[in-house]
């Protein structure tokens, strides 16, 4: 009697390598081991060869006395500090110019990008000229231009251009008064913090209120008044506990005050202006990607142009803009290593330059430097991806 089988026949176990899942696992494991062995071999071989040639290896050099000076140090540093410290100094200088550059490039980029789409003929043409000029000249040339052509045209320290006798501009950069906090100053930053939190809470409240009643409050004015006003009142009430050290011309240079290096200014200008040209195009493409129907709809509701741009167009444009901005930010950070061309003491100039040359530990130092750029770039990528996830189209 024929009976249809209700279960599939059991698969024979067979040899392990017949099982595709296990086979894939084995192949991957073998591949990984071979790769690890290969890398291990390269490292071992390098160490062996370095030793055979009498070249010292290892990270012990980081403990040694550096013995050279660095013109811009955000934290305490003297020539008695260690080589390890020069790494930190260089890293901070790189981060400083990158952060300044990112902020400035974003602001300039947005303004130029929006200006390029302006109905004002002159403004739009000027923005076009800006973009075409600055993104088509190599960055290194621009850095050298700002450094050698523009900043070098400033007068010597003795003939400094001065502003209120407190700010001085000369070929050595910019000197400005240095604030020295006295007793009781701590209250002011706290007041600022409270004011910022307050302004944010007020903004949330105003938003909810507008959603409920349709009435808009002057959020920006009130917020600004809070953030500026509260710390100012606290500062005055505590008796203005801040002393300004004015720069003074003694001998060769100004003493006292904060000196901003012309190398930093030149690098900052060049990086910002160059990257802003690309950001402008990204902003323009983002705005153009928002369907014209959106603008028309906003106009038919008789929303003012400024609000249409801020509330309708830009939020939707951000979806296109953010991922590309990440690349530009990463480029800017990596381009900051061109600092070495004009003597700005960034990571590459100080650590992968002078420290490398004084110690001769090329492999260790270059590996550390590459790792730093990798970590910075991955961090920026990660943060921008978080932001990107927030600006994504929310499908409801």
């Amino acid at each position: 009697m024929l009976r249809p089988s209700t279960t599939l026949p059991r698969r024979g176990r067979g040899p392990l390598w017949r099982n595709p899942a296990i086979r894939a696992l084995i192949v991957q494991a073998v591949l990984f081991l071979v790769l690890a062995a290969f890398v291990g071999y390269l490292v071992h071989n390098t160490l062996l060869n370095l030793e055979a040639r009498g070249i010292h290896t290892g990270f012990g050099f980081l403990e040694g006395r550096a013995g050279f000076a660095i013109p811009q140090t955000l934290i305490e540093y003297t020539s008695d500090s260690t080589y390890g410290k020069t790494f930190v100094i260089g890293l901070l200088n790189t981060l400083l110019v990158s952060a300044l550059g990112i902020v400035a490039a974003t602001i300039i980029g947005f303004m130029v990008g929006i200006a390029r789409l302006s109905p004002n003929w002159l403004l739009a043409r000027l923005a076009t000229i800006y973009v075409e000029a600055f993104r088509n000249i190599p960055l290194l040339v621009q850095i050298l231009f700002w450094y050698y052509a523009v900043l070098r045209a400033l007068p010597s320290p003795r003939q400094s251009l001065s502003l209120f006798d407190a700010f001085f501009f000369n070929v050595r950069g910019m000197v400005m008064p240095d604030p020295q906090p006295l007793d009781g100053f701590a209250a002011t930053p706290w007041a600022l913090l409270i004011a910022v939190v307050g302004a944010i809470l007020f903004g949330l409240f105003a938003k909810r209120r507008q959603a409920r009643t349709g009435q808009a409050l002057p959020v920006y004015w009130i917020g600004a008044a809070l953030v500026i006003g509260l710390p100012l009142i606290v500062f005055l009430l505590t008796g203005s506990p801040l002393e300004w050290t004015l720069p003074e011309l003694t001998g060769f240079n100004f003493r006292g005050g904060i000196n901003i290096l012309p190398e930093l200014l030149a690098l900052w200008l060049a990086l910002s202006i160059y990257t802003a040209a690309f950001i402008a195009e990204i902003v323009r493409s983002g705005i153009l990607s928002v369907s014209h129907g959106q603008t028309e709809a906003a106009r038919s509701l008789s929303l003012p142009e400024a609000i249409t741009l801020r509330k309708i167009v830009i939020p939707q444009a951000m979806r296109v803009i953010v991922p590309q901005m990440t690349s530009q930010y990463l480029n800017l950070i990596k381009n900051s290593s061109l600092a070495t061309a004009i003597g700005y003491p960034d990571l590459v100039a100080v650590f992968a330059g002078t420290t490398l040359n004084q110690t001769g530990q090329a492999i260790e130092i270059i590996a550390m430097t590459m790792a730093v750029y990798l970590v910075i770039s991955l961090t920026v990528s990660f943060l921008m991806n978080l932001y990107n996830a927030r600006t994504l189209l929310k499908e409801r």
Partner: protein
Amino acid sequence: MRYKNKSLIVMPAAMLAAVAVTHVQAATLDDVKSSGEFTCGVSTGLTGFSSPDENGKWTGIDVEVCRAVAAAVLGDPEKVVFSPLTAKERFTALQSGEVDLLSRNTTWTATRDNSLGLNFAGVNFYDGQGFLVRKDLGVKSATELDGASICVQAGTTTELNMADYFKAHDMQFQQVAFDTSDQTAQGFDSGRCDVLTSDSSQLAALRLQLADPDGVVILPERISKEPLGPVVRQGDDQWFDIVKWSLFAMLNAEELGVTSENVDQMRDNPPNPDVARLLGKDGNFGEQMGISNDWAYNIVKMVGNYGEVFERTVGMDSPMELERGINALWNEGGIQYAPPVR
């Protein structure tokens, strides 16, 4: 699967290739002889030491050391490929074999000799670090430089000496470090710095590049010892000896009165046994190093003795007009002294 299998085969092959490449320890002399030329690391342009002239031909006292080695080994001083290097690149270029000889106004120090896998083959110029300032500042001594901005080349002993000097004298300074000596001169010229510091011979050379060479003065202090000389890789003693003795041959030739003009006559009729040994008429001093016995003859004939080279490149016959000073021979009041050829 095909793809993965393929990579499994490629990997070990690549590993084998890596093994094959890395275990060849080259003898530099054999390589140089078989290729018929060698690579010499020089500066990116420093008048008197190594810089290209208007025809693109490299000249300078460091360049002549490269030519002397080429004359000794290959019998032709022009068989050198010059590779311009910044101060920061120089040691890595030599270590990695990119250049076979580094003759680039490089100071002989303990760290460089002992921990970088390099050997200094002698001293072709004894120097000391100095300071150059504008005359109108009215500065007469380096001890008056408190608070000054100073232009310096990055990655040099100069940078270290300066930090030590200012610390020892309890003075402050602001350092501006550039990659090449041209840039430091440019930085000084444009007023970015009050002071330019370097080895004093280099200051004499850089001075010529300034917009107003007569408006500046080199201060009298010499704050360091800077013995400059050619450098080779450690672990190739034969090549080390050749470079060392090429330099000694130039010094011995000067001491014995052998010049590029009288060298033929001296070889045909050696006035004394020393000259006969130097010029290969007696003994086999070239063969001992694996090169021809007329090695020193070639050097003197084609490049010149040390005195001739000095005068032509940095001395009175050159725009730099440096005195021999301590670079005179030991029997003429200097400290240049070569072991005898015997």
